């Protein structure tokens, strides 16, 4: 069947329904790459639900032969009221711009042709930008603008099919370019999720127009996302609601939300209904500002930190550098006490991570980029982090040197030899040398059944690792600690004169007094220092030197 030259209300309905279906099929791939503005993994869902609300509002206006302008206004209003999230609100503006334009400039009686679609897309782009106080390029704004511009450049007599094809093709290309415009995307190794959503919308509309069967959806590639690239501006709550009233002043409400400390503020809609989207530490003032001007509907408040944590696995945390030295020091560790000790030794960035939460290469790269003026040393402090550290260093070989520490104790050895200025090569060599003299004893409880040196280890048994290798199980954490210490002392030719005990957050009560006494009783010549490391999973970590 040949595609029609123009669209009437019934065929427009099919076009939008197909777009909705196409977005639904690709929802997860979009969610998976959602890193901007807040990495909460719901862009695909939000755009889909917004488009669905739009289509449902259009369907509710039977009969099907109602005029195109009225149908478009219906879906625009449906999108506005049903918009979800930042991306949904912007999508609702795209639909509204399209609707307003089509309602005004329909080619011929009640039908949409090429010229109307050209104008509609241009208006859609304009409306999208109008929703955002400070437009950021490399986002869905860019994609709709570039798609509209390409469509606008088609000849005056271009058919609807031509216009949709050009817009769709350009949108796809524009999505691919988003990482070049928005560094966060490049760091995360993704294209913009919202931009992809716009491209899917246009592709879906075109499939609907052509009456084609939908192809296979995209694959979900969550694993390729570098979590670290993900700037996390979103603390507090994402708050959304609709205010219904009369004579609503969009500008005024926007200003009120700004003044209340709102971020990512979006206020869109009509004088009788506004959709509000705002990020705030406390959602209360935002809701009050809305309630002051009208009746609230569809109030939705989400904890962005919780969203972010569930999306990233909760392992991104870095601290801003206090003072940028020529030579920076980035340390991967966990435990507040241990992190503080590393900072006191000069660490400019701490990346949260350890045996159970390995940071990604991108996360390390981002931390390193802000850590030193000339060169940065990276201490992975865990054998499972070394590879990611080396991947990060491979991205910036001139900037980053990995000092392959496999434990916290080794990390402290290296950090002691760190100097904030000087010859990077010499400092790096000194740090490497310094690891040699420090051995690490880690005491934990087994999380699985296994066999160590012919000994069965049961779930929850106390076990001890020396320099990352499981050496024994014991009846208690204290015994495990002493067994590990003996193993180190037996293997060290010169003996040891200092043991630093890092107490974990779940160290047994009284360990701070008991452990030094135990060690001093067995090895009188050894000085023992106790540090409240605060690390999880490992009640005791010992540095033996």
């Amino acid at each position, binding site marked *: 069947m040949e595609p029609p030259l123009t669209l009437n209300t019934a065929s427009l309905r099919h076009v939008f329904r197909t777009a909705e279906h196409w977005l639904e099929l690709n929802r997860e791939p979009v969610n998976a790459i959602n890193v901007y503005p807040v990495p909460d993994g719901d862009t695909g869902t939000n755009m889909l639900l917004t488009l669905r609300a739009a289509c449902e509002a259009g369907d509710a206006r039977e009969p099907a032969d109602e005029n195109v302008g009225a149908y478009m206004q219906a879906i625009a209003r449906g999108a506005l009221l049903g918009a979800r999230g930042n991306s949904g609100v912007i999508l609702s503006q795209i639909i509204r711009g399209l609707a307003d334009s089509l309602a005004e400039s329909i080619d011929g009686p009640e039908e949409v042709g090429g010229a109307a679609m050209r104008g509609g897309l241009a208006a859609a782009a304009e409306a999208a930008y109008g929703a955002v106080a400070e437009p950021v390029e490399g986002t869905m704004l860019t994609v709709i603008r570039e798609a509209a511009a390409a469509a606008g450049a088609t000849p005056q007599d271009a058919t609807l099919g031509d216009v949709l094809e050009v817009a769709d093709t350009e949108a796809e290309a524009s999505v691919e370019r988003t990482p070049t415009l928005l560094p966060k995307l490049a760091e995360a190794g993704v294209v913009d999720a919202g931009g992809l959503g716009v491209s899917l919308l246009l592709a879906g509309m075109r499939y609907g127009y052509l009456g084609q069967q939908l192809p296979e959806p995209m694959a979900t590639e969550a694993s390729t996302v570098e979590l670290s690239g993900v700037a996390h501006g979103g603390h507090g709550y994402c708050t959304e609601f609709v205010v219904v009233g009369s004579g609503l002043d969009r500008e005024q409400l926007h200003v009120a939300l700004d003044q209340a400390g709102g971020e990512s503020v979006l206020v869109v809609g009509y004088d009788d209904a506004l959709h509000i989207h705002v990020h705030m530490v406390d959602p209360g003032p935002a809701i009050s500002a809305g309630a002051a001007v009208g009746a609230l509907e569809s109030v939705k408040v989400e904890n962005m930190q919780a969203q972010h944590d569930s999306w990233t696995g909760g392992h991104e945390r870095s601290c801003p550098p206090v003072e940028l030295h020529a030579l920076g020091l980035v340390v991967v560790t966990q435990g507040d*006490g241990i992190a*503080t*000790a590393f900072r*006191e*030794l*000069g660490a400019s960035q701490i990346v949260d991570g350890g045996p159970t939460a390995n940071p990604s290469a991108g996360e390390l790269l981002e931390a390193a980029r802000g850590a030193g003026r000339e060169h940065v040393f990276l201490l992975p402090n865990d054998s499972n982090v070394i590879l990611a550290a080396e991947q990060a260093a491979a991205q910036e070989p001139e900037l980053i040197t990995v000092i392959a520490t496999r434990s916290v104790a080794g990390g*402290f050895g290296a950090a*002691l*030899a760190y*100097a*904030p200025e000087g010859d990077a090569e010499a400092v790096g060599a*000194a740090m490497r040398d310094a690891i040699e*003299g420090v051995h690490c004893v880690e005491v934990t409880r087994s999380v699985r059944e296994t066999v160590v040196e012919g000994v069965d280890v049961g779930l929850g048994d106390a076990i001890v690792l020396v320099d990352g290798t499981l050496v024994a199980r014991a009846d208690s954490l204290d015994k495990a600690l002493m067994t590990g210490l003996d193993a180190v002392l037996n293997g060290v030719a010169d003996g040891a*004169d*200092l043991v*630093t005990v890092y107490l974990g957050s779940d160290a047994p009560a009284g360990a701070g007094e008991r452990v030094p006494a135990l060690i001093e009783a067995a090895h009188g010549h050894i*000085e023992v*220092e106790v*540090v409240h490391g605060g690390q999880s999973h490992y009640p005791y970590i010992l540095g033996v*030197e």
Partner: protein
Amino acid sequence: MTVRIVTDSTADLPVELAAKHRIEVVPLTVLFGDEALLDGVDIDTDTFFERLARSPELPTSSQPSPAAFRERYEQLVREGATEILSIHLAGSLSGTLASAQQGAEGLDVRVEHVDSGLASLALGLGVLKAGRVIEAGGSLDEAKAQVEDQFSRTRAYFVLDTLDYLLHGGRIGRVSHVFGTMLKVKPVLTFENGEVVQLARARTQAKALEKGIELAQERFPLEVAGTMHAVAPERMQAVADRLHELAPDVPIVTGTLGPTIGVHAGPGAVGFTVISSPAPGG
């Protein structure tokens, strides 16, 4: 021409050694509260550290007055000195050098001053060098040139048991970033351009001294070395033994940190100084 040598008490020269080489030592003052004690005159090293251990408050130090230098210079002139070489503690660490320069103003003999940029035995060994040049019949200019040359080949290494004294005395310089509350850290300190700076750091004093010796080996071969301590003779001896092992033919002078240096280094401090051999042909 009769040339006499003057230094101050921070050179940590034993009294008999100074006397032997006719070196005049102008004392700095150590203050316990309001009680002012002249370093090496009113209080000796052992008494100082005993008192320090009992003292509820940390002592401070103060430079000699210009008048103190003036009197000493005038006395030397009366004894027949026609020229004076006055060699002192780093001018950036103390006003001692400035006092000495003021004290020499208007004097009708030539007085030359040398800023060692150093302290303790590193300074003292330079003063002894000047004494020997003069004893051998050298001129003031020769002595001054040789002393300055020796200071350029001198490096001092200190490892303090605690940085509290250095902090209290305000001579912390660029060492301040090593302060921490979580881990004990022992920095290896030196004088660089008259400032106290950190060369390296370790977790124990023994390891820090080991590190210091490792760094010092870059300056071998040596002409002479010195070791010193504040109530830590055994740790100092270990350093002397290690230096002797590494440089068997090099004379090693040992000494104690006197009261003024003790105010800033605190008990338990161990240091050593190395003086590289002059470059061949130089």
